[in-house]
């Protein structure tokens, strides 16, 4: 509020879902291509000329069938790999990465998992315990601090993993099908948790999924990737107001439209 008063120039509006282009970006990919294999014979192009921008605070869902290179894309944004050509820009430092499998360290308690992320992010020892407990409260697991990973259910593990990702202190969260292995009831609940945390923490989320309804239920924007090589095939702005539910008729009808395009992308491969 105070910044609004202090800034003389007309500040870009940050409220509208469609105002993505005017906002400062959190992730930007310019003509990013990635190939694997060294010799020309077995060279495989996974990503081809991807242009993608996520504005700060935006929730973008990347949708695609198998072979669209979504994991490769996230690896590039996470800085775990480098593009063959093009440029990946993440101005606010290393993004946090969440996987389909919780990837929590089984030798540590839930709280210690979060604390290790805090430690690696350079948080001083005296603050770690308090911050870890606060993050576990944020994902609604106030009593999980001392629990071992194997004592938690699948949904609880993913929530601890979310807390651990947030502990890395990044404003950019990359999610690689994080709820794909969960049952529908738990997934529904975690959708709600994630949108709540996203808004509370003003995160930028890049969420990879192959579940169309999930993408529409969560994202402000849905980007459809084609497969082999991965290209941006189409984009949709999702102007459905939050809170959304996966069974909302607007969600369902947009999902149906996108599914049609996804099927076209898949069928294209059958002809080749």
């Amino acid at each position, binding site marked *: 509020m105070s910044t609004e008063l202090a800034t003389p120039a007309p500040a870009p509006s940050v409220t509208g879902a469609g105002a993505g282009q005017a906002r400062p970006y959190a992730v930007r990919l310019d003509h990013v291509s990635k190939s694997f294999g060294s010799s020309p014979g077995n060279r495989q192009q996974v990503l081809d000329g991807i242009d993608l921008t996520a504005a700060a605070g935006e929730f973008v869902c990347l949708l695609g069938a198998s072979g669209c290179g979504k994991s490769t894309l996230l690896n590039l944004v996470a800085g*775990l790999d480098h593009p063959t050509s093009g440029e990946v820009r993440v101005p606010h430092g290393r993004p946090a990465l969440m996987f389909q499998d919780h990837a929590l360290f089984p*030798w*540590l308690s839930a709280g210690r998992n979060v604390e290790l*992320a805090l430690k*690696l*992010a350079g948080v001083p020892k005296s603050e770690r315990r308090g911050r870890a407990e606060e993050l576990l409260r944020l994902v609604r697991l106030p009593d999980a601090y001392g629990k071992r990973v194997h004592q938690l*259910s699948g949904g609880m593990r993913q929530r601890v993993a979310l807390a651990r990702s947030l502990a890395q202190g990044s404003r950019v969260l990359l999610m690689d099908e994080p709820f794909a292995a969960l049952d529908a009831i738990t997934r529904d609940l975690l959708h*709600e948790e994630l949108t709540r945390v996203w808004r509370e923490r003003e995160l930028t989320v890049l969420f990879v999924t192959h579940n169309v309804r999930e993408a529409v239920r969560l994202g402000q924007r849905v980007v459809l990737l084609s497969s082999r090589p991965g290209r941006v095939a189409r984009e949709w702005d999702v102007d459905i107001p939050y809170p959304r539910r996966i069974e909302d008729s607007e969600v369902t009808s947009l999902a149906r439209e996108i599914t049609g395009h996804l099927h076209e992308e898949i069928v294209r491969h059958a002809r080749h």
Partner: protein
Amino acid sequence: MPATDTEDSRRGARHEPPGRGTGGGGAPGSTDDSDEMASGLDALESPVSATAATSRRVLAKAAPPLAAVALVLALWQTAYALNWSASLPSPAAVWGELAGAWSDGTLLPALGHSLLRCLAGFAASAAVGVPLGLLLTRVAPLRTVLGPILSAVQSLPAAALVPVAVIALGNSEGAVYAVVLLGAVPSIAVGVTAAVDRIPPLLLRAGRSMGAGGLRGAVHVLVPAALPGFVTALRQGWTFGWRALMTAELITATPLPGIGRMLDAGRQGGELSLVLASVVLILAVGVLVESALFSPVERRVLHSRGLASATGR
């Protein structure tokens, strides 16, 4: 009367849900709702663990080995009583041999020498084998060269190494230690390498994405992730080292006699009771170290990772 009662309650029940819905509706109500949903799901999905009483657990754990020992003793006594083999001594005679060695003051020093050698040899083997194994996982060319050699040495019986060591180093402690090291180091190094290979790649990827690469990654992710495998490697290293030591003591004439020497004395004197007494001692040390040191450590390491349910209890 009863008919109208049920009708009333039915109507009440029909009207109740919308009433509750408006009461708990709105934005704050819906968060409470999902909070309760979350904790309800958590309670339903958390694994239920049942723990038996301590006394029963101890009994359940101790009974099978005790029964096995009793069975062996009974068979042995029967074989002796029926005089199946002329040279077979009775369990009592073997016990007498042990008691005699205890009272004339040779048992404890022999046991002490052997244990000390094995502990020192094991410590040295671990100090060499663990870093060597880790190095092999980091440096691929080294692994290509050393990997097959280590596997080959691992399969070499200690008895083949003793003459080499004795000729090279004489009838000395050095020769004994050389045999123990050659027995234990390869198995520890190979085990450590395998343990690192078996770390789920996702954990390493997660660690790297959190900024744990290089030395920090090794300390915070790699070593703890491979710890169960490290314990297995060390346990196997101990077993190999202990066997190699007994072979070395049996053949090498070191100034300080160990249990292996007791065994050799029995063999040379043709006293089967002394030989069997030595065998009982060697077995006892093996079982003791296993059950007092490695089993608890392994159980703890596995249990803390939720892996012990199959092997533990």
